[in-house]
């Protein structure tokens, strides 16, 4: 580890002010790339976002402890896609943002030329890239497991976009208001509760009376919507999109009102 190099020749003019902000596009690209690298470097994030969804897809499709109608992969691929979105856009995003806040990153970068909107845009952009990776891997594994998708891709993209918005909003809501350790614990608990009770891994009808409540959870709206399109070939699932859209609007509004940068 070298010490500071004593400078014998301090060039006149090396620090001459030439302030100015880079283009928004350049800042956004740099920010997305940085956040993406950090995400892919984080083992727990990868576990939650990639390994768990892929593992669950394989296990649930191959083993028959959960009873479903029709081809097993046709039921589980949409559910696991919803889970993957929830992992990346909600749990991963909330935990990373919470710690960035605790370590003063949000505050410090708020004193640079970077606008705060671009800072959050960078985080969201990185989530979208990870989601793309999840889609490619899960669709690939699904096809290997005998998945035969139906329906129109536009509806699927709409559902994924609305779901991402709803989960990102919830992530920012937690991360901007609570301490990082609380956010970590809560995000993991919610992730697990929604995985088990959120209508992701087994038909909602099995939950009996609780079905009505669970249907309005973002996890259920996303997985049910994806199933209706991909499994049953339905057209645009307006009801589920509305639920997700409401979650997005409410959570983002609340986050905007309560978010603390330090």
């Amino acid at each position, binding site marked *: 580890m070298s010490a500071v190099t004593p400078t014998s020749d301090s060039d006149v003019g090396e620090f001459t002010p030439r302030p100015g902000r880079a283009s928004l596009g350049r800042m956004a690209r740099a920010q997305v790339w940085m956040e993406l690298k950090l995400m892919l470097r984080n083992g727990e994030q990868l576990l939650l976002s990639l390994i768990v969804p892929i593992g669950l897809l394989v296990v649930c499709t191959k083993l028959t402890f959960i009873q479903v109608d029709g081809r097993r992969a046709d039921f589980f691929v949409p559910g696991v896609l919803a889970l993957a979105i929830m992992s990346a856009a909600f749990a991963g995003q909330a935990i990373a943002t919470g710690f960035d806040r605790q370590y*003063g*990153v949000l*505050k410090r970068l708020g004193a*640079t030329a970077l606008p705060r909107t671009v800072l959050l845009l960078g985080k969201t952009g990185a989530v979208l890239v990870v989601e793309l990776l999840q889609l490619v891997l899960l669709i690939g594994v699904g096809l290997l497991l005998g998945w035969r998708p139906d329906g129109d891709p536009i509806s699927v993209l709409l559902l994924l976009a609305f779901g991402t918005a709803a989960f990102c909003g919830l992530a920012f809501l937690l991360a901007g208001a609570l301490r990082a350790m609380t956010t970590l614990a809560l995000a993991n608990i919610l992730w697990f509760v929604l995985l088990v009770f959120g209508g992701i891994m087994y038909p909602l009808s099995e939950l009996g009376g609780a079905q009505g409540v669970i249907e309005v959870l973002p996890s259920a709206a996303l997985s049910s919507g994806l199933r209706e399109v991909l499994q049953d070939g339905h057209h645009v699932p307006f009801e589920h999109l509305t639920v997700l859209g409401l979650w997005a609007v409410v959570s983002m509004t609340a986050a905007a009102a309560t978010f603390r940068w330090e």
Partner: protein
Amino acid sequence: MVGLRLTHARALEADADVAVTPAPVAARPAAEPALVIDGLVKRYGDRTAVDGVSLRVERARVLALLGPNGAGKTTTIETCIGFRRADRGTVRVLGLDPRADNDELRPRIGVMLQQGGVYQSARCGEMLRLVASYAADPMDPDALLERLGLATVQNTPYRRLSGGQQQRLSLAMALVGRPEMVFLDEPTTGLDPQARHETWRIVEALRRDGVSIVLTTHDMEEAERLADDVVIVDHGKVIATGTCDELIRGQAEREVRFQAVPGLDVAALQRDLGGEQLVHEPAPGTYLVVGPVTPQLVAGVAAWCAKHEVLLGGLQVKQRTLEDVFLELTGRELRA
């Protein structure tokens, strides 16, 4: 106590390579002052962190905010960069309101906070390049890393850097966008002496190149060496302000100490010097002349010794330091 230290430390500065040149290279025509704070008050609950601070920094000058922990230095800086809203008073940075014009201001300033502010798993070089990408015309990040001794750790994650390395990265992040003005909150706390000196050279080079600087410190030597102007704050109030020289010379009492054979006639010496000073021999062979010190006084002591065939063993003018000034003003040590 320094041997024959008749001139101020800055004039005797050994680092001839970074001469303190008065005129900024990139002087801007008729620019408004870099910073004007007028009657700033900031409260947290019922605690008043800043209580009516006013100060002014001209372009390409270095102002040191000096004071013990909790004096209100950091709050003052955080108000200047728009993190805090002033409860009372006004702050103008480069002619802008730090909150209303925050978007316009941020690209023009560089900020070094006391700690944190970096993604824990970001690598050192990666982080600096990220911040460089926010600027239209940034400095070369590699050159900056090299200069700050971070080139060899540029692939090390931030959380594994030593405290001093984290500190230096923070300084680099403040400078890489070529700001017009920088705010450095305790830039050298926790640095080893080498890194501290390099940081000082950088501050001097910034000033030379026309950058305006506000730094906080509780290191007297740092303030004396770097600052054009010093503002001493305590309990949120400005208790003294001026150049280092003004602050140090403002107060009278100083002394000349010399060594010679024991048993000189101190009363005679005192008479010969004109009676304004007191002369005594606290230990055999060591003499103190206490009172206003002038060049004539030093010459007078030497002349009296020559007249009496006394060989001077050593003669020192003790100058007061900012440390002494601070102690007198607050009754407290700076690093309490």
